[in-house]
């Protein structure tokens, strides 16, 4: 019967990557942002590339239809980058939309049909009000959740209370995740919030002083984050600083058949493992403190690559909310279930720790233009594995294996991608 090989038909390599700055831009639209990412991608190819060689585009976009009332972004972007009349395909997997684009692009080359494809994603969210964004994102919840009033922070609030009750963690543990991720943020020039929590605290103090308002006596970041005046509840126990911002942005990567990669660069990255999974809502999920879609994605990617969790030297994980980072690092096998909440305080996931997580600053500080996030996480892996990450460079001997985990919806779509520098 079925053999279930789950290997690529031929090797695929990344030869270029780029991303726009992430942020809230009144004067830039999706095309402007994608142009930024595209131009950087073409310029990043060490030995140069003729964009006319690109044979197809796979583009992730979750919901520009809702956010800016324009759909059909595959074709729009194919016109922008001069790809038309060659094919463009849009992929949608909520916040994992561009990781799906990456995966489909990999399969298109692995099948032997194309030699070079562009993959990426774009989202333009900040022109909607925050209520509209909440409503737009809630389109990706399971109907039983959305209909009774769940929001995205609410979904992760539920996961947090389930996790706290099961393992004895508290909101204080979540603060350590936020503090850790923001420590990497000032070193990322693409970051939407390029500040540490301490810097944000001092900025708040200055702003209160200027307004002649009383200044609370915050001694440190934990004091600051414990103050509901500075860090109000959004969906308890998710507070403002547990949630990623509303963002605009784009990212993309250029993929080629591995045997052609050396024509373009001496430092290509191989797609070592690529996995995807689907999940159900709370009503049917096997656990409230784990995502079955992540576990399926991880199993596929580990099996394909032959790597184990301990072989991964650093990883981006989908920290749309602080609690999410804890759940993912457990689901991906980096830490044992019930241990993930302790590791940030112990420094294990810091930039200089044994298992750096979210060296980009994560979605929390880098920003989360949902359809662009997946390939932007892989952009970080690209930078790190090529030793081009500047001040946030992971300093490990023989850095060659990095990964990115992307989550869509309330765990409905998850991917895990392992890249390797050979």
């Amino acid at each position, binding site marked *: 019967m079925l053999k279930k090989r789950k290997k690529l038909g031929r090797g695929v390599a990344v030869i270029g990557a780029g991303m726009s700055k992430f942020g809230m831009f009144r004067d830039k639209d999706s095309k402007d942002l994608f142009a930024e990412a595209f131009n950087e991608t073409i310029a990043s190819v060490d030995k140069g590339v003729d964009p006319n060689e690109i044979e197809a585009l796979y583009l992730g976009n979750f919901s520009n239809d809702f956010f800016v009332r324009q759909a059909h972004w595959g074709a729009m972007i194919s016109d922008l980058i001069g790809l038309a009349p060659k094919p463009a395909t849009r992929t949608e997997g909520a916040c994992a939309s561009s990781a799906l684009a990456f995966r489909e692009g990999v399969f298109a080359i692995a099948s032997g049909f194309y030699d070079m494809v562009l993959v990426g994603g774009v989202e333009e969210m900040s022109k909607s009000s925050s209520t509209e964004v909440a409503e737009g994102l809630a389109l990706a919840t399971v109907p039983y959740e959305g209909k009774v009033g769940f929001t995205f922070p*609410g979904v992760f609030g539920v996961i947090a*209370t*389930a996790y*706290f009750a099961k393992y004895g963690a508290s909101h204080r543990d979540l603060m350590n995740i936020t503090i850790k991720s923001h420590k990497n943020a000032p070193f990322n020039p693409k970051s939407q919030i390029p500040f540490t929590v301490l810097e944000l605290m001092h900025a708040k103090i200055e702003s209160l002083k200027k307004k002649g308002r009383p200044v609370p006596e915050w001694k440190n970041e934990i004091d600051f984050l414990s103050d509901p005046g500075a860090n109000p509840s959004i969906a308890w126990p998710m507070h403002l600083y547990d949630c990623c911002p509303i963002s605009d942005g784009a990212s993309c990567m250029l993929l080629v058949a591995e045997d052609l990669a050396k024509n373009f660069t001496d430092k290509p990255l191989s797609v070592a493992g690529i996995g995807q999974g689907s999940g159900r809502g*709370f*009503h049917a999920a096997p656990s*409230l403190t784990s995502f079955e879609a992540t576990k399926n994605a991880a199993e596929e990617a580990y099996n394909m690559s032959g790597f184990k969790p301990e072989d991964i030297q650093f990883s981006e994980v989908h920290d749309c909310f602080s609690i999410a980072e804890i759940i993912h690092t457990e689901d991906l096998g980096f830490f044992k279930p019930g241990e993930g909440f302790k590791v940030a305080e112990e420094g294990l996931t810091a930039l200089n720790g044994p298992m750096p997580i979210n060296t980009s600053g994560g979605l929390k500080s880098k920003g989360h233009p949902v359809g662009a996030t997946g390939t932007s996480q892989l952009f970080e892996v690209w930078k790190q594995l090529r030793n081009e990450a500047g001040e946030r460079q992971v300093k490990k001997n023989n850095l060659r294996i990095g990964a990115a985990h992307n989550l869509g919806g309330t765990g409905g779509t998850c991917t895990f991608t392992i890249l390797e520098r050979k």
Partner: protein
Amino acid sequence: METENISDISYEKYLNEDKLMGSRCKKCGELYAPPRPICIKCYGTDMELVEMKGDGKLAAFTCISVGPPFMVEEGFDRKNPYCVGVVELEEGTRVDARIEGVDTGKPETIKVGMPVSVHFLHREKNNTQITYLAFKPK
């Protein structure tokens, strides 16, 4: 008698009648709530609707301060958050629901594991009756 359609539409119709329904596979006996038209355990398609008792325990919850427009219209905001949660029914399945009768201003007083029972919240929207599945502490 015509076989009743098992769908989210019929699920909501029963909520309007103060009934929380699930479905059971006649072939393997697996129970689902909310009801499923296909048994995902044995792929049986002969399913029957069954009413749930409506008792369970709170498996997890959140108190939401920034809600979608339809909750804001009901008067919920930062000063008046609402609680939603996941309830594990006595029958062993889970449902998403609003949680009533708890102090959302003091969420630390709401306990995971507390026994709850079903409560149907009727609202009218554009001249149509809608019902929110809700639970209250016992």
